[in-house]
């Protein structure tokens, strides 16, 4: 009897295992419908680095590596790599037999072209980091060697597809200006999908690359990126079943819970491990009285950041007290100075500075530049204005559109400005730029537009960028966090949690640290 029960249990177990295995086996075919917003100016990933271009282009173009959710490198166009013990020589072995979408072979010449010529001309970040290299060489068709002037442990992060896009050298023979050439409109990559059709203003269709190097992939036949300019329209597109997934930012945060509650729909916060966005309030230290630490502390005490997360970002955020958010490498919360919500303390600090309220209750007037990225950010600016007004800092919101915001923020024409940056896997790439005193105005909005000057922080940032010993590096970044969280050159409002809402029939949608910017070779649609 016992034996019979065991046999039955074994048979049931086997059947169950088989059914689970069968259920998990990827199905080939079908189309995945997504939204891309706003419509990208280009889907050439070498030339377009904005979110929409990266989202679409990352299915067509590839980098040498991708990144796991823990940000460990995994092979793509590079099959393997070695890093010399001194941390200066990176040797990549490339994948053999890879073809560009036009049938030409992919070789080390393409990698050399991309990192020596194309990307430095089109992408400032690669140009800056390539400044660290002493040489880039290709001993044979399938080997590339990067030699650095000094160690730079963050170096691997530049090789993922969106930053380190490998471009087809053969298309660009004779081209002198890589940024403006019309050759950029010829979309040829090595990725799992090829451009099928781009009906401007309506949709972008990508079709399966049947010659893809990873045999048996991609599973999907087509990817459709719907172009829906209105946020309400995008909600409707998802609700009506026209699209299968929406990315963070496609709809306003306050719509997410409603959309995710529908049957057959799931929500994930994964897939932003590499980009890791952090929201903050820039404070222009060039302007009085913002240059006074007590004033910045008063601003920090006047604003309830828990309220912001809960009520404005609809819980899609985590509190943060410094430039390193939760889950980010080298974060050290033990050294942080915290400035909790305490309007009375804010008023006391302003009193201490001698900023007494006048008859209207106004101590000082400031201009606040809101981030013109939709309703949520506008509400954040309005909330901030009310809280600052309440402690006597009369705040005027400056009406602006995106170009105006870029222009004013990057040129330092603001008192306070809302902003966010992507932290890009490593503080050497994602944090340094915002606090180095050598990287201030007219260098984009992720630069040190606040005018924070601290030579000690400068020296620590440079030293930490080059330190190969992880423990030592962590110590340096702890010191940096300690100083920055105390000095408040910026008021970090929240770690942005980015929801992706999708139908559960879509499998493997988020599988790596690049999230929706992964190449989608593994994505399939279940029944």
């Amino acid at each position, binding site marked *: 009897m016992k034996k019979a029960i065991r046999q039955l249990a074994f048979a049931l177990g086997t059947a169950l295992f088989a059914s689970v295995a069968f259920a998990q086996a990827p199905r080939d075919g079908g189309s995945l419908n997504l939204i891309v917003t706003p419509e990208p*100016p*280009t889907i050439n990933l070498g030339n377009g680095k904005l979110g929409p271009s990266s989202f679409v282009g990352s299915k067509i173009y590839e980098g040498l590596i991708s990144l796991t959710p823990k940000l460990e490198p995994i092979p793509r166009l590079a099959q393997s790599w070695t890093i010399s013990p001194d941390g200066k020589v990176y040797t990549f072995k490339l994948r053999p037999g890879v073809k560009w979408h036009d049938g030409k072979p992919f070789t080390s010449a393409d990698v050399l072209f991309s990192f020596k010529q194309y990307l430095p001309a089109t992408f400032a*970040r690669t140009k800056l980091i390539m400044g660290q290299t002493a040489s880039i060489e290709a001993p044979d068709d399938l080997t590339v060697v990067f030699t650095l002037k000094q160690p730079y442990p963050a170096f691997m992060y530049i090789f993922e597809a969106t930053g380190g896009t490998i471009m087809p050298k053969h298309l660009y023979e004779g081209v002198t200006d890589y940024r403006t050439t019309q050759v950029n409109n010829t979309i040829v990559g090595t990725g799992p999908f090829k451009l099928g059709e781009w009906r401007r*203003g309506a949709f972008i269709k990508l079709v399966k690359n049947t010659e893809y190097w990873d045999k048996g992939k991609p599973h999907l036949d087509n990817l459709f990126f719907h*172009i829906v300019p209105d946020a309400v329209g995008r909600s409707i597109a998802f609700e009506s079943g026209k699209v299968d997934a929406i990315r963070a930012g496609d709809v306003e945060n306050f719509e997410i819970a409603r959309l995710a509650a529908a049957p057959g729909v799931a929500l994930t916060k994964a897939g932003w491990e590499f980009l890791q966005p952090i929201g903050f309030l820039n404070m222009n230290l060039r302007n009085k009285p913002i240059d006074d630490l007590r004033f910045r502390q008063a601003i920090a005490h006047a604003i309830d950041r828990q309220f912001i997360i809960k009520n404005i970002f609809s819980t899609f955020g985590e509190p943060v007290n410094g430039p390193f958010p939760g889950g980010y490498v080298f974060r050290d919360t033990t050294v942080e100075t915290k400035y909790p919500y305490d309007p009375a303390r804010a008023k006391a600090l302003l009193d201490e500075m001698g900023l007494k309220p006048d008859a209207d209750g106004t101590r000082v007037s400031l201009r606040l530049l809101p981030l013109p990225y939709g309703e949520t950010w506008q509400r954040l600016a309005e909330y901030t204005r009310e809280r600052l007004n309440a402690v006597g800092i009369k705040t005027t919101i400056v009406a602006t559109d995106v*170009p105006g915001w870029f222009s004013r923020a990057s040129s330092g024409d603001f008192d306070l400005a809302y902003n966010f940056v*992507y932290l890009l896997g490593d503080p050497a790439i994602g944090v340094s730029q915002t606090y180095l005193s050598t990287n201030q105005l*007219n260098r984009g*909005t992720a630069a040190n537009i606040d005018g924070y000057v601290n030579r000690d922080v400068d020296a620590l940032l440079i030293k930490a960028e080059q330190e190969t010993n992880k423990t030592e590096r962590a110590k340096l970044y702890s010191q940096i966090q300690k100083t920055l969280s105390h000095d408040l050159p910026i008021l970090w409002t929240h770690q942005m949690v980015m929801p992706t809402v999708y139908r559960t029939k879509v499998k493997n949608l988020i599988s790596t640290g690049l999230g929706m910017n992964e190449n989608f070779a593994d994505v399939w649609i279940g029944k």
Partner: protein
Amino acid sequence: MDRLIFLARRCIKAVLVILCVIAINFALIRAAPGDPATILAGEAGAVDAGFVERIRQDYGLDKPVPVQLLTYMKQLLTFDLGESYREHRPVKEIVLEKLPATLLLTLSAFVFSVIVGVSLGIAAARRAGSLLDTLITAGSLVFFAMPLFWIGLLAIVVFSMKLGWLPPYGMSTVGAEFTAWETMLDVARHLVMPAVTLGLFYVAIYTRVTRAAALEVMDQDFVKTARAKGVPEGRVWRRHILRNSVLPVITFISLQAGHILGGSVLIETVFAWPGIGRLAFDALFQRDYNLLLAVFFVSSVMVVLFNLIADFLYSLADPRIELQT
């Protein structure tokens, strides 16, 4: 001969108007903070110090505005609308890509609004004071007062989400493989809501204008004479009242041409209709000067053309009006 002279004079005037529109827009857009260089720099994330200046030099944005305007006007004489700063494609190509969608939308809205508006106006006037008249007048007031985007969103909720009759957005079904006939039907289904929404505002205007004009005309002596002569009532309305009532409608038609782009920006956004209204909106927010000016150029040509057509229609509807400049 008179008509030819009239046409020549109006054409010269039209060219001058268009050039003025371009010059004003050229100055206005440059007065807004931020230029393509700052946008491209902002989008590049981290940039080095010379990046913005290099882009300005590449596009000639470092030169004084009058010099830039002169260069642009010279290009325009050869119908060269320049290149989009963002897409690096000829602007002409981009505009021509989107123009058919806008023309389809606006002309459909136009035809719908004229036919329905004039018909309702006449119907209301014929039964002035009746329940029908009250309903039409009140309805037109409602549609006149309601914002277009709001009507659009309500229509999507009712006809797409609740009833499932019409597609919620776009100009065609994405990913569908249709025959030519099926494609036409598909586009027509997508067109219904945006065209009707865009047209409703003008339906309201034409209804009210036609009703008022018809009420005024129907008491005139020539109408009484026609009736006294024994002309059948239907013919009195068609030949005498309607023809004389449409003159103010024609005036509004020429005005509608000017508003239609503004309306289509909203409607094209709400319904994701891929036309030049949205193109203008996007170009403005990306400070894509060449693209924006090209859209203004096309829309001012449309307005001028509509006005010209309206002038001709006047003379056809009322022989007492002569073509004079």
